[in-house]
């Protein structure tokens, strides 16, 4: 967050401790398409996941996350494209020949077997000795914190315990890749938070690559080394959570991952590192050049800024250097404890949301007050206005 405007590189380097692009590629999807009854569920998808990372697929319901996972697991065959696991093509390989294990959304524990036999199922298929099976089952149950539950039936476990057994059953095989399809969706909020921490701990302990599917953006951001935001079978944004959050590549990503204020404008000529965008009312905003997407012919775009990046001041406050500014009038001011949330009608006609932290310094503007909104230029981004159907939008309101 320093003075440098070269934010893309900056955020890369802060996330560098967790991205592993120098590691070998574990899974590679090349132009993968899956068509169900002539509608594509996954549309020309390209994806690489690196060894040891915690990667999340995030997106609204029906965007093709499960389908992607099932194709990697071998339960679904792509209509076209290739899937490589550890460099080997597995596109049409049966699931029982793949070095991949899955934690199913419904857990899919075998109801007629006890915990031990559930966990040992995969090891026994590999013809390990009895002693070795017992040793490995014991140690994985230790890791998932269920040491004395071997004799229990799956139905005699709580939801969280069942989830741990499902995790243990997959992990005990030491796969090169673990697929998890919304494993938390059956848990209540509190247990969910607890299991998120647990899952992260287990992942770093066993060092296995995780491909995690969720439609909870907060969950994806807190847990992942990298994530991809999917929409209608396509990846719209990919990178570390910070990258994707701070420089969303499309309007959809900007609104799906957190909240964004988006202002329609036209791109003017660039000057040096900054591009200038003129809003409908004539206000000019600066956007770091590398955050302006390639516009195919047209010059209309949307300028975005996250609500927490904006400072709110009474009208007439001087604008610091290197900041964008926009005048407006407070419509609603809400005290939320940790801060204030404002809805501001800007002069450009767009309503902006502003979060101000409660640090007890200034007098909060009240509704009706004329204000000026300022934010650092490096926190400004631009996206191509969303075209096509807006039907998915209704399903991905902020949680």
């Amino acid at each position, binding site marked *: 967050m320093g003075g440098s405007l070269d934010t893309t590189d900056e955020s890369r380097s802060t996330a560098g401790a967790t991205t592993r692009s120098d590691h070998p590629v574990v899974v590679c999807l090349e132009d993968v398409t899956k068509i169900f009854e002539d509608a594509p569920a996954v549309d020309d998808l390209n994806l690489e996941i690196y060894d040891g990372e915690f990667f999340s697929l995030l997106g609204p319901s029906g965007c093709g996350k499960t389908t992607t996972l099932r194709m990697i697991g*071998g339960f679904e065959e792509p209509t076209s494209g290739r899937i490589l696991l550890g460099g080997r093509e597995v596109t049409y390989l049966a699931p*029982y020949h793949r070095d*991949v*294990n899955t934690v*199913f959304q419904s857990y899919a524990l075998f109801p007629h077997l006890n915990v031990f036999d559930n966990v040992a199922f995969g090891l026994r298929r590999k013809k390990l000795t009895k002693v070795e099976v017992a040793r490995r089952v014991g140690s994985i149950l230790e890791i998932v914190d269920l040491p004395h539950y071997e004799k229990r039936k799956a139905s005699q476990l709580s939801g969280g315990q069942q989830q741990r057994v499902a995790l243990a059953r997959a992990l005990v095989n030491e796969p090169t890749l673990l697929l998890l399809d919304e494993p938390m969706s059956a848990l209540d909020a509190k247990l969910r938070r607890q299991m998120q921490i647990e899952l992260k701990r287990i992942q770093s302990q066993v060092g296995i690559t995780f491909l995690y599917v969720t439609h909870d953006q907060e969950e994806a951001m807190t847990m992942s080394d990298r994530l991809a935001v999917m929409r209608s079978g396509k990846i719209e944004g990919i990178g570390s959570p910070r990258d994707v959050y701070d420089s969303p590549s499309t309007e959809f990503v900007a609104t799906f991952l957190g909240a964004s204020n988006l202002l329609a404008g036209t791109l003017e000529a660039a000057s040096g590192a900054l591009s200038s965008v003129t809003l409908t009312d004539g206000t000019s905003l600066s956007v770091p050049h590398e955050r302006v997407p390639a516009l195919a012919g047209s010059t209309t775009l949307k300028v975005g800024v996250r609500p927490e990046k904006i400072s709110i001041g009474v009208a007439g406050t001087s604008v610091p250097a290197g900041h964008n500014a926009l005048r407006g009038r407070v419509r609603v001011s809400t005290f939320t404890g940790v801060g204030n949330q404002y809805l501001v009608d800007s002069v450009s006609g767009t309503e902006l949301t502003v979060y101000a932290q409660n640090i007890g310094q200034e007098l909060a503007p009240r509704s009706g007050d004329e204000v000026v909104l300022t934010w650092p230029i490096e926190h400004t981004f631009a996206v191509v206005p969303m075209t096509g159907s807006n039907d998915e939008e209704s399903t991905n309101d902020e949680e």
Partner: protein
Amino acid sequence: MSVQDRTDTAATSRPERPARRRRKLGRFVLPTYSWLVIAYLVFPIALMIIYSFNRVVGGLQQVSFSWNGFTTQWYRQWSNVPGLTSSFWLSIRLALVSTLIATVLGTLLAIALVRYRSNKFRGKVAVEQVLFLNIAAPEIVMGASLLGLFVTFNVARGFLTLVLAHVMFSIAYVTVTVRARLSGFDRSLEEAAYDLGANPLTTFRLVTLPLIMPGVLAGALMAFALSIDDFVTSNFVSGTAPPFPVWVYGATRVGIPPQVFVFGTFIFMVGIAFAVMSIVLSRKKS
């Protein structure tokens, strides 16, 4: 606290009054009705069991329904009627063989019907219709047509034709029973098994079959019971050696030997034993 209790009891006792009246009614009507049904169903069987202990007077050894005194003679001499004993063993063998075949085929058919949609399983709808017809069609029609078939194609009537006929009429019952069990089956369990490295055969053996076993057993029991007591079809397709029900029917014209009641009692007891066993097993499970 006490105030709370009082209001609680007051609140619950008020709406209870009509319910209690209904319950009083239920206390008499329902049990009476149940006992009547039980009596209706069990009376003929009880009569058979009682008369299996009846002494026979006169030279001919055949059952009569006048009580001549208690004896266990027929139990001691259970195998003294040669045709009867061999027909009984034939029926047992027939039931075992046809149940085995019908259970295997019926189970596989049920799996196919549940697993594949009609775009992949051509003729699925036709199979379903035929199964229904098979259950609904009068046995006399099937028996007569089978006889016609065997005669036309010059197939000697005997054990083979009996097995063919019995498999034919029990397969639909097995399929229907197993299919009911399969329709609640979570397919992700099989996917989980594949995921853990089990091939389809291992998955069937270790996951699918154990889970649908109750349905398969129920279907097998039904097939066995259908086979053991089948008369109509068997009468058409049996050769010189008739199975038990056909033999008994033939005997009624000359007089039923008392041993028939002994065998009848035995079959009934085995049935009771199965029923009790299934109740005990299902109790244990829940």
